[in-house]
């Protein structure tokens, strides 16, 4: 048993912590207010070789394992949850399935460009009428010689407008439900592809989210990811991995909120003393810190299991995602409470943290879906651990 980070992991953490403090946190509030994409920070991460953090080194990425990625995403989210999700999506749900299911041709065409930051990626499963119930997609893909023709509406896609490549799930056989889904690598320049409107969101305002409009979109058969009918499996295994990233993002936001709350509580005075001297405030801080640690160990456990590659980690990823996302909502709320009226104003970052936290219990599998996954695994096992 060993709870310490390796030297490499510590170096990664310290490098990113420093970068985030100097370059990400100072601009995050303004970008949020303007709903502006953090393009400069994305380019800086690419220069540092960390934009494609989970892409294998052979394809120009940093080759981080899941534990390393979790550490990195936590650090980035401490300054900007929007930047963290941009990076997490590019790596975990766009590059990730290409690494695992792509042909050599597909890897060679896309992974180096994603790693260098020439292109950003996204993942598109959700539709206006199909979120948690992901097996029932309306988007259709019809084979036409060396091409597939995709038609349908996709919703809530991260990295729209700025993204060039999207892993899109569509039904190649509508009668077979989940078994009739297939994954495609769709470029924004393919005929019949367009972006729908950008969503006006509560939080993660500088991450761009919106719909994809596919009208007889011509996708070369060479861009089919995996086999026909393998799409649902690809999507679910991708989400298992991505959930660890969202859990890490949650821990990072919570840490940002705790650090702000601590700093504020030490300097804000009431009734003649810093409010950090009052038990009411101390107890909130203690609960925040404890639940952050609990979430982080769940995240690291899930990541480390995934890195073993020979054991299932679905249940542990769901536990990490469920706990961390629920945790960050409580922690961000408490950070606002400690700030009082200042916490409700955009002058202090906790207002942004509270808005950013909200989506973590929703995307990449709602808390309700995580509980279903965990309960299913629990009830499947003969003797519970």
């Amino acid at each position, binding site marked *: 048993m060993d709870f310490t*980070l390796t030297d490499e992991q510590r170096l990664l953490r310290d490098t990113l912590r420093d970068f985030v403090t100097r370059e990400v946190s100072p601009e995050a509030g303004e970008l949020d207010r303007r709903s502006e994409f953090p393009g400069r920070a994305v380019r800086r991460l690419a220069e540092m070789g960390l934009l494609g953090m989970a892409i294998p080194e052979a394809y120009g990425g940093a080759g981080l394992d899941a534990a390393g990625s979790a550490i990195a995403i936590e650090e980035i989210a401490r300054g900007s949850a929007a930047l963290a999700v941009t990076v997490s999506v590019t790596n975990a749900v766009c590059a990730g399935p290409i690494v695992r299911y792509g042909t050599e041709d597909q890897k060679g065409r896309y992974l180096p460009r994603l790693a260098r930051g020439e292109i950003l990626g996204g993942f598109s499963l959700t539709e206006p009428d199909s979120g948690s119930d992901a097996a029932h997609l309306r988007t259709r893909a019809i084979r036409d010689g060396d091409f597939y023709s995709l038609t349908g509406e996709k919703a809530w896609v991260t990295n729209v407008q700025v993204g060039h490549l999207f892993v899109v799930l569509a039904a190649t056989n509508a009668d077979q439900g989940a078994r009739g889904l297939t994954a495609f690598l769709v470029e924004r320049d393919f005929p019949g592809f367009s972006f729908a409107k950008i969503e006006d969101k509560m939080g993660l305002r500088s991450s761009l989210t919106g719909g994809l409009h596919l009208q007889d979109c011509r996708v070369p058969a060479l861009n089919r990811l995996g086999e026909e009918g393998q799409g649902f499996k690809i999507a679910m295994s991708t989400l298992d991995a991505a959930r660890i990233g969202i859990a890490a993002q949650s821990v990072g936001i919570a840490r940002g909120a705790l650090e702000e709350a*601590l700093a504020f509580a030490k300097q804000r005075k009431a009734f003649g003393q810093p409010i950090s001297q009052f038990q009411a405030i101390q107890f909130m801080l203690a609960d925040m810190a404890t639940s952050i*640690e609990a979430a982080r*160990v769940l995240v690291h456990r899930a990541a480390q299991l995934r890195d073993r590659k020979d054991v299932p980690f679905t249940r542990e990823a769901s536990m990490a995602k469920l706990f961390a996302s629920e945790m960050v909502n409580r922690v961000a709320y408490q950070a606002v409470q400690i700030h009082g009226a200042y916490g409700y104003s955009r002058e202090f970052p906790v207002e942004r943290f509270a808005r950013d936290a909200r989506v973590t219990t929703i995307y990449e599998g709602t808390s309700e879906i*995580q509980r279903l996954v965990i*309960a*299913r695994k629990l*009830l499947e096992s003969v003797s519970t651990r």
Partner: protein
Amino acid sequence: MRLEPTPEQLAIRDMVRDFAAREIAPVAAHHDRTREFPIENVRKCAELNLMGVMVSEEHGGSGLDAVSYTLVIEELSRACASTGVIVSVNNSLFCHPVETFGSEEQKRRFLAPHARGEKIGCFCLSEPEAGSDAGNQQTTAFHEDGGYVLNGTKNFITNGVAADTALVFATTDRSKKHHGISAFLVEKGTAGFRFGKDEVKLGITCSGSVEMVFEDCRVPASNLLGEEGMGFKIAMNTLDGGRIGIAAQAVGIARACLEEATRYARQRKAFGRPIAEFQAIQFMLADMATEVDAARLLTHRAAWAKDQGGRFSLEAAQAKLFASEVAMRSAVKAVQIFGGYGYMNEYPVERYFRDAKITEIYEGTSEIQRLVIAANLLRD
């Protein structure tokens, strides 16, 4: 980073898991009802060398690490929370301070027989008027004839009725407050040392809690543990480690709640199907399972930090706070899943519910843990 226990640690866990299922669980309800101290459980634990898990082999212990210790306490508590705390008190609150602060002679006289489980130890800090505010000790120890004379009352003393040796805290110099407290090893049968009232409790009913009264109780100077005035430091150091044991006990209780509730939900039918098929039940089970895992990981993290030899007060407080509250929440949910049966002592969850509550109170209440954690945060 490697968060799983080692194969050696897992082997100890599995051994204790089998033992607890075979020997401890079947008698747990009986002892809960009768409130009889389970002395035969202690004897059996002694045969497996579980009474001095972390004590060096030289002094009669098993010489294992703190992580292994948490696995032992979790498994025992899964079967019987009273047995869990009985073993935990002998290990953490008696053997640990004697090994850490005792003279060679004290280790020979007191440590080895307790580590081997031939004798049972207890820890006497709480008083009727001094719980969380442990520095406010009213029990006094005055010098007389080269020894000490103790006067005062201690209460809520786990293992008290069965204890052969008590580690007793008393003030040798009230003017120095915390720094005037000293620790003494007092043997059963010492004149002026008697039991006060039996403590009838909500849960962990058979852990032998009792009030202890000291009336002109003479203790030789050779029974002073550490130096005069070191008592508060000894108590706080001891409780840091004790909290890891209680966190492990809480994880054991929470796991018992989860496992029994899962088993029941699979077989109990309502509206034509097992209640495990309803989302309302599934979600309770999922939340319990997630929190149990988080609590166990925090407990292992604290034990691991202790094993590294540095400071671990923060980690221990976080583990104890989180795990104890998880035990209570899990117990509430388990009773709810059992419905009316959960309220009956025919099923064990009723006992788990009563047992869980104490974990939020003893060896530092949740409120004390939060103060410890906040002090650590604000110090940085």
